[in-house]
């Protein structure tokens, strides 16, 4: 075992350790949300996950990005089979360990090269869509600053990773052709064979350096990328699966009935009603002021959001110039949750920072612009539910702060007094039957 192998093993262990530590933090942050049961109907959940996450069925409504995304997605998943081989090579010092598969190996490598080409193609078009064609949902002010950099960084990294793969294979081909001892003849290279002539006049030493550099670049890139996921919108590649699995399976129009309110209303209507004792722990607010008032699925939603903006591009409020953007609701939720997480890391437990999701991140104007039409929920390719967060925050505004817009307060009063949202007498309810 050479120095390279020892270095590789250390790198692999270090990257895996760091990833596990950070994922545990994310898990802890998500579990700051209160509990909600999403374990019913397991077979429907598996089916939904297969269709929506694995099969990307909700992407199909926009065919061009759907096809490009399939290239990148399938490429990413399958090229990782080659990464497994690179891990084995890295640990044992072998070269193209799986080449004993013979003809099938050649097919695999050729197939991966085609996929890598499609990934590169997809990412280039994605970069153009964001930076040259400037598609509306990508130039929105939601993405100003880090989110826009994040997106470009991901796409550029993927292109670089794929390029390293091609250059490595091209150098390898030259080394194989030269009959170098370590570089056994293996693989078939439909894409990088076009690059190989460029390496024609090079010395063996130079070629080996290029091949090794690209190998290391690719493997460090993959391990770095793995750890980058945790702090990036790109986390969706992993979280999409659990997030879709735990989707809301009820009709979209069905909003949750707050159990704490049910107890109070029952007690009001029937004095003999004794509610079950509230669970121990901090008393829950009515509705949500901060991320801890949301449920864990809403927080998982926030980490899963990849900021594609389909929700916002379908939102009637946003499309008519209102401040509300469902994508921003999800991004704010994650930003605040990460802030709370850092606070816990620093202080051992959460220390009040006099900030909250409502007020410091999301304003009342955004919340009151929502028509609860469910377009954002319908659009999301990974079943994120921004509407439930909006409604929970409205509940906080109305039930804890009594801060509803004037028109709504009037509507509440009418409903309490006349049983209708308008000022009509209940005695007149059947008047229509007497008219023509």
């Amino acid at each position, binding site marked *: 075992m050479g120095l390279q192998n020892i270095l590789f093993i250390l790198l692999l262990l270090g990257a895996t350790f760091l990833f596990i530590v950070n994922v545990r933090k994310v898990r802890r942050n998500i579990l700051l949300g209160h509990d909600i049961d999403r374990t019913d109907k397991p077979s429907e959940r598996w089916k939904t996950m297969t269709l929506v996450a694995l099969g990307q069925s909700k992407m199909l*409504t926009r065919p061009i990005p759907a096809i490009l995304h399939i290239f990148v997605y399938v490429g990413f998943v399958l090229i990782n089979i080659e990464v497994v081989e690179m891990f084995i090579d890295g640990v044992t010092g072998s070269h193209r360990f799986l080449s004993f598969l013979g003809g099938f190996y050649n097919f695999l490598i050729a197939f991966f090269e085609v996929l890598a080409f499609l990934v590169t193609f997809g990412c280039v078009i994605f970069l153009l869509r964001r930076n040259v064609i400037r598609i509306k949902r990508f130039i929105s002010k939601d993405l100003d600053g880090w989110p826009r950099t994040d997106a470009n960084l991901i796409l550029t990294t993927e292109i670089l990773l794929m390029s390293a793969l091609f250059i490595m294979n091209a150098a390898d081909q030259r080394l194989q052709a030269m009959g170098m001892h370590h570089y056994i003849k293996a693989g078939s290279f439909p894409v990088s064979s076009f690059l190989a002539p460029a390496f024609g006049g090079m010395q063996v030493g130079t070629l080996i350096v290029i091949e090794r550099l690209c190998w290391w670049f690719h493997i460090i890139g993959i391990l770095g990328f793995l750890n980058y996921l945790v702090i990036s919108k790109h986390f969706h590649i992993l979280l999409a699966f659990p997030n879709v699995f735990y989707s809301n399976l*009820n*009709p*979209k*129009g*069905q*909003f949750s*009935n*707050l159990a704490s*309110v*049910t107890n*109070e*209303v*029952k007690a009001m*209507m029937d004095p003999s009603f004794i509610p079950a004792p509230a669970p121990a722990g901090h008393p829950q607010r*009515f509705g949500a002021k901060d991320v801890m008032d949301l449920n864990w699925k809403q927080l998982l939603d926030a980490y899963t959001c990849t900021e594609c903006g389909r929700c916002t591009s*379908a939102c*009637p*409020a946003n*499309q*008519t*110039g*209102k*401040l509300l953007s469902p994508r921003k609701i999800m991004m704010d939720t994650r930003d605040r949750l990460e802030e709370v997480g850092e606070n816990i890391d620093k202080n051992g437990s959460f220390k009040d920072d006099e900030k909250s999701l409502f007020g410091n991140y999301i304003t009342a*104007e955004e919340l*009151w*612009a929502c*028509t*609860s*039409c*469910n*377009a954002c*929920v*319908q659009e999301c390719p990974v079943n994120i539910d921004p509407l439930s967060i909006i*409604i929970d*925050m*409205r509940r*906080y*505004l109305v*039930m804890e702060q009594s801060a509803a817009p*004037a*028109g*709504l307060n009037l*509507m*509440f009063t009418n*409903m*309490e007094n006349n049983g*209708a*949202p*308008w000022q*009509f007498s*209940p*005695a*007149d*309810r*059947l*008047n*229509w*039957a007497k*008219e023509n």
Partner: protein
Amino acid sequence: MADYAARGESPEILFWVGCAGSFDDRAKKITKAIVRILNHVGMKFAVLGTEETCNGDPAKRAGNEFLFQMQAMNAITVLNGYAVKKIVTGCPHCFNTIKNEYPALGGTYEVIHHTQLIQQLIDAGKLSVKGGAFQGKKITFHDPCYLGRANGVYEAPREVIEKLDVELAEMKRSKAKGFCCGAGGAQMFKDAEKGNKEVNVERTEEALALEPAVIATGCPFCMTMMTDGVKHFNKEQQTRVMDVAELIAQANEL
């Protein structure tokens, strides 16, 4: 309903009229159209009349869960008191709330929207429909959010409209991609937030681009918003906004 109860009878179905259908002048016409259809097919139906109250939808969407549950539990007490089994509503908001949110509070009923009932009546051969004055005319259907996306009912209203032998033209944003009229989520009862366009104007513009004779819908709130939108563009002469029930009742001179 009280009359049926006094006679010791029970109707086939309870027609939940809704607040708009009871009080709003335009929506009352929809209510009457539904009643004409029910009478025409001889269905035994009842209404709660003065015992009906708001189902609580606008309170709930506005975040007032207390008021919603008060309204809901009172309504459930009345409905359960009459042992109601089956309900038809003239409004997708009532439909959604009673169907989806009442069961957890103790009120479980079979709830259908009036466009579904009309479709069932046609399919069962109890209601035969001809196009009448609408034959050959271009009609577009605006999906109410709480009927369509919220509950997946896209086809019933369309199948009913197609029975009128008309040209059903679809807007680009229709069915699951339908664009809201702007009234949902209790927006009906408040001023719109600051923006550069009203939601109903955006939606009506899309509908009017098809130059339809009728914009059909199945919701009294969409009715208000789309009617205002048509007025905004001064197109009342060319395009009317009508409920699916009104189309059926009028075409068949019920």
